[in-house]
């Protein structure tokens, strides 16, 4: 079932506006809240179902998504009727022909419906600005990375995440020493007191995120944290209008290992931090116990830009809520040389002048 939200005023496509926090029509300036849009869509659906329930039901299903070719799925644009292909994990995208938002609702319905979502707060203009200033700060970044055409390639994606709650406990055994020394005559006496230290520490960890999409690099997604969960709302389809969205590739069980490694690291760190006041601490035994309390499926907003430079792929991501940017600025060899010799010249000149005149 392919969905688009049409303006009740003029019939154009409506998109979610991150600033107004509403769905808006760019032509007649009509705006609807997420709930209104959802209600409107439901009535329309009801009417359509009433009208041709008997004849078309099977056909619509077939027409909307028929045939699977490998990992790709064909579907029909709800606005212009063009036949399109997407990979099986895409949940929201745009029609290649008419550009209207296409929401592939069955991909995220039923058990695959996210429980919660954080709506985009960073608009495209803001995202471009953040990226541009960041690139500018890197004196060695090649110029083409912050050209307008590169900035236009930025896309807004709702990335599927699992949020995990864990109970964690660590039992630690450590051999610690305190060292005291004194001087008597020509000798220095070093007294080392030895201690056997035991700790049993537990803590609860809430909403640790792990991205569930195969396409998104894990390390980049981890660095986008933290998200402000206070702004998380219940998931509604209209939020996705005008954005790309992915459905999860990995189940919560599959992603648990990554998160467990993180939690184990955290609780060990906490346990270790309770051992203090010693000259040396050597942890001799450590036992971590974790209990998964809950995992919930949410969608988090991310601005992405992938750029190929000299055969290497560079990925930049901006937290769509906080604006935090993750990425590694590429280095231009030409700029490196320029800076090196520039600095060499300036430093040599200044230090020589100082050297000759002062000495």
């Amino acid at each position, binding site marked *: 079932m392919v969905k688009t939200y049409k303006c009740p005023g003029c019939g154009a496509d409506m998109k979610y506006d991150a600033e107004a926090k509403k769905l808006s029509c760019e032509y007649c300036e009509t705006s609807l809240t997420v709930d209104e849009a959802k209600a409107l869509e439901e009535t329309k659906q009801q009417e359509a179902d009433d009208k041709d329930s008997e004849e078309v039901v099977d056909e619509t299903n077939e027409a909307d998504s028929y045939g699977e070719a490998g990992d790709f799925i064909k579907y029909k644009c709800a606005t212009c009727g063009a036949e399109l292909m997407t990979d099986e994990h895409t949940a929201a995208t745009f029609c290649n022909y008419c550009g209207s938002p296409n929401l592939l609702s069955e991909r995220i319905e039923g058990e695959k419906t996210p429980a919660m979502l954080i709506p985009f707060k960073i608009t495209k203009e803001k995202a471009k600005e953040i990226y541009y200033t960041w690139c500018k700060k*890197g*004196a*060695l*970044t090649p110029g083409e990375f912050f050209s307008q055409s590169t900035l236009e390639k930025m896309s807004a994606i709702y990335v599927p995440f699992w949020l995990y709650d864990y109970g964690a*406990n660590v*039992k630690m055994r450590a051999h*610690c020493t305190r060292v005291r020394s004194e*001087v008597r005559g*020509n*000798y*220095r*006496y*070093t*007294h*080392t*007191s*030895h*201690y*056997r*230290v*035991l*700790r*049993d*520490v*537990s*803590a*609860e*960890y*809430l*909403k*640790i995120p792990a991205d569930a999409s195969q396409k998104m690099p894990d390390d980049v997604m*981890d*660095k986008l*944290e*933290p998200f402000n969960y206070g702004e998380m709302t219940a998931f509604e389809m209209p939020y996705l209008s005008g954005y790309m969205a992915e459905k999860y590739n990995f189940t919560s069980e599959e992603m648990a290992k990554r998160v467990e490694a993180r939690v184990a*690291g*955290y*609780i060990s*760190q*906490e346990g270790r931090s*309770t051992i203090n006041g010693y000259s040396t601490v050597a942890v001799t035994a450590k036992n971590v116990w974790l209990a998964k309390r809950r995992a919930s499926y949410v969608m988090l907003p991310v601005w992405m830009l992938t750029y190929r430079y000299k055969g290497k792929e560079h990925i930049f991501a901006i937290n769509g809520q906080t604006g*935090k*940017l*993750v*990425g*590694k*600025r590429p*280095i231009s060899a030409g700029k*490196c040389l320029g*800076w*090196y010799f520039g*600095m*060499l010249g300036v*430093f*040599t000149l200044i*230090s*020589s002048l100082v*050297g*000759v005149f002062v*000495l």
Partner: protein
Amino acid sequence: MRKIKYILLLIIVMQAIVMSPVLAAKVHYEEGKRVYDYADLLTNSEEERLEEYALSIEDEAETEFYILTTDDAEGKSAMEFADDFGDEGNFGYGSSENYVLMLIDMDNREVWISTTGDAIDYLTDSRIDDMLDEIMEYVPDDCYKAGETYLDEAYDYICYGEDDGDTVFGIVLMCLFGSAVVSGIVLLVMVSGAKTKMTVGSATYMGAGGITINQREDIYTHTTTTKHRIESSSSGGGGSSTHRSSSGRRHGGGGRKF
């Protein structure tokens, strides 16, 4: 009682008058005299030329330069003789005690260069060694040349400052080398600074309850003791070694036998 006081005073004055020729016979200190050639190793005109040279450089160096020769060290070592001579003459530029003295001691057959005040820091051990290398080429056959070399070198070192003598080209070269290293480090920082770091940690996701410590035991088991002999610290290389002369003044210097 009063008479006795006068007599005592008279005796002291008389004593001083009688003793003075004895002292004077030994050392003829003279204001503005820089060359004391008791061993007569220099001709009169050579003495005058060295005298003039020594006086001409002392204002710029803010240091006095002395040349002393002797064929009777009075049983002292060359170092003691040189130090005592300067101390007794109360040498030193202006109100400072900056002076350098070269002694050609024919008795001990040794050349000694004695330094005091700031000159100690300018004429480091290794520099005195270099000076002696050159001076010893002329001692004892051409003491005039030795004196001239000594004045040349001492003046150069003192007026050049505490750093090693270098030409402008040398300084630029050194700056170039230093700048190459610094630029490299700055560039490395620029290159490595382009990466985003992980900013969340244990505290970010910890529940409101924080950590609970279920068990906390710190059990003392035993104490071990080791002992080490305290080594006296040895001084680092470079710089000037100093000693105290019999008058208690601090001197630097160095010498070489011939």
